[in-house]
C-alpha cells in the first residue's frame, strides 16, 4: 500500500515552495533559518 506521504516531514499544504527549506532526503523536518547559509554582508561575519 505504499507510505503515508504526509508523514515524511514535508508541509505539503505549504503556500510557499518546499525546495528552499528542503533539508535532505533523510530529514524529517525542513531547514531552520539557522541551517541555511546566507549571503549576509561581510561586516556581519564578526567572528
Amino acid at each position, binding site marked *: 500500500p505504499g507510505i503515508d*506521504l504526509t508523514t515524511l516531514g*514535508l508541509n505539503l499544504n505549504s503556500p510557499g515552495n518546499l525546495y528552499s527549506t*528542503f533539508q535532505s532526503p533523510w530529514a524529517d523536518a525542513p531547514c531552520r533559518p539557522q541551517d541555511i547559509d546566507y*549571503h549576509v554582508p561581510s561586516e556581519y561575519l564578526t567572528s
Partner: protein
Amino acid sequence: FDDPPGLHEKTEFLLREWVSMYHMPDAGRDSTKAFSAFVGQMHQQGILRTDDLITRFFRLCTEMCVDLCYQALAEQNQTQSQLRNQCFHTLDAFVRLIALLVKHSGDTANTVTKINLLNKVLGIVAGVLLQDHEVRHREFQQLSYHRIFIMLFIELNAPEHILENINFQVLTAFCNTFHILRPAKAPGFAYAWLELVSHRVFIGRMLAIIPQQRGWSMYAQLLIDLFKFLTPFLRNTELTKATHMLYKGCLRVLLVLLHDFPEFLCEYHYMFCNVIPPNCIQMRNLILSAFPLNMRLPDPFTPNLKVDMLPEIAQPPRIMTDFVAMIQPASFKKELDSYLKTRSPVTFLSELRSKLQVSSEPGMRYNIPVMNALVLHVGNQAIEYIHSKGLTPSMSTIAHSSHMDIFQNLAVDLDTEGRYLFLNAISNQLRYPNSHTHYFSCTLLYLFAEANAEAIQEQITRVLLERLIVNRPHPWGLLITFIELIKNPQFKFWGHEFVHCAPEIEKLFESVARSCM
C-alpha cells in the same frame, strides 16, 4: 603515475600554506587577499606552468584532502562535530582555492577558460572518487567528496556578477559530473549523490532560476539515473533498510517536485514511467498525479461530471521525450505506420506480439519501453485522426479504427504478463485533464466493454484497482475512469463474478462506489 620528482612535496607544502592562509583573520573577504599572495607562490613553484602540472596538482591535493579525512575518520573517541571540523578545516580551504582559481582564470570576459578549469577539477575529483570507491570497496567513505562537491557548488552559485555569467555552464558541469557518479557507477556514494542532487540550492538553480527551463532535461536525466539504480531492488519489493532509506529519500524529493514544479513531472512523466518498475505503484502515482499549477481539477466524484466538456480536455500534454524514436526497429515502425494508415499488411496484427516479446523468461518477456512507446504513439495518432474529422474521443468515435484494431488485438492476443504491461502503458496516460487522459480513459473503458473474455475485464479492473488501493496521491484521470466503470450501467460492472470474488474486495468496491454516489 609519472608525477615529476618533487611534485608531491611541493604540492603538500603549497596545500598546507594555503590552508593556513585561508584561516588567517586577514585573509580578506572570500580570501581574496590571501589568494593574491598564494597565486604568486604557485607561480614561483611552477605549478601553473603547464596544463599537465595543474592537473597533477589538483589530483594530488584531492588525494591529500581525502587521505586526511580517512585519517580523521579512523581516529576514535571524537564527536561528529570534532570530526567534521577537522575534515572541513582543510576541505573548505581547498574548495575556496578551486573556486577562486575558476573565477580568476583567464580575464573576466573569458568564460571558456573558467569552465574548462572547472570541468577539469570536477573530473579529477570524480576520478579520485571512482578509484577510491573501487579500491576501498566497503571501506569507501563519501564524506570528503560530498563536502567538496556541495561547498564548491554553493561557492560557484554565490550572487556574484562574474559567476552569474557562467552559471548555466557551471550547472551543466555539475550535472555531467553527477551523471558520471550516478548510483549505478558509485553505489557507495548513492546517499551523498541524492543529497547533492536534491540540495535546495541545486534544485532552485536547475528548476527555478535557469531561464526557459533549460535545466529541466538535465535534472530529469539525473532522476532517471536514480530510478534506474533503484529498479532492481524495488522490482522485488523486499527492501532492505538501506534500500528503503534511499527509496524514502527519493519519495521526499519527488514530493518537493510535485509541490513546487508539477509541470516538470508532467513533462517528463513518460521518461520516468519507462524506468520505474511497474510494481512501484505509489511512486508512479505520485508522478502521474502532477498537474499544472494554474489548473483547477474538478472533483472526480462530482455527480454527472462532463469530462468531455472541460476546457483543457482537448489540449495535448507536453511530453518532452521523443517516444516515437523508441519504437524499434525502424522496420517495425514502418509497418506500424503503414497499418495505421491503410490497415495493411494484414499480417501486422498477428505478428505484433512477437515484435514486443524479447525473452521467454517469465516476468521479463516483453520490451516495456517499446510497449509504452507503441501505445502512446498509436493513441496519439488516433487522437489526431479523430480531431481531423472534427470529432472528439468518445466510446463511439474511438471504435472501428486501425488504432483500436491494434489495441483490441493486444488485449486479446497477449498473455497475462504482456496484457498487464499493455494496460499499464494505457493507465500511465490517465493523468490531469488533457487529450491523452481523455482518449486513453475512453480506450480502457472500450476495451472493457468489448472484451471477448471476462479475464480481460478482470485484468483491467486489477490494473486500475492496484493503483487505487495504495496510499495517496491518485491521478485524476485514474479516478474518473474507475468511477465511470463502476457507475455506468453500460459496463455491467457489478454483474461480474470477479467483483464478488472476496468479501474484502466487494467491500472495497462498494466503499469506492459510495464515495462516488
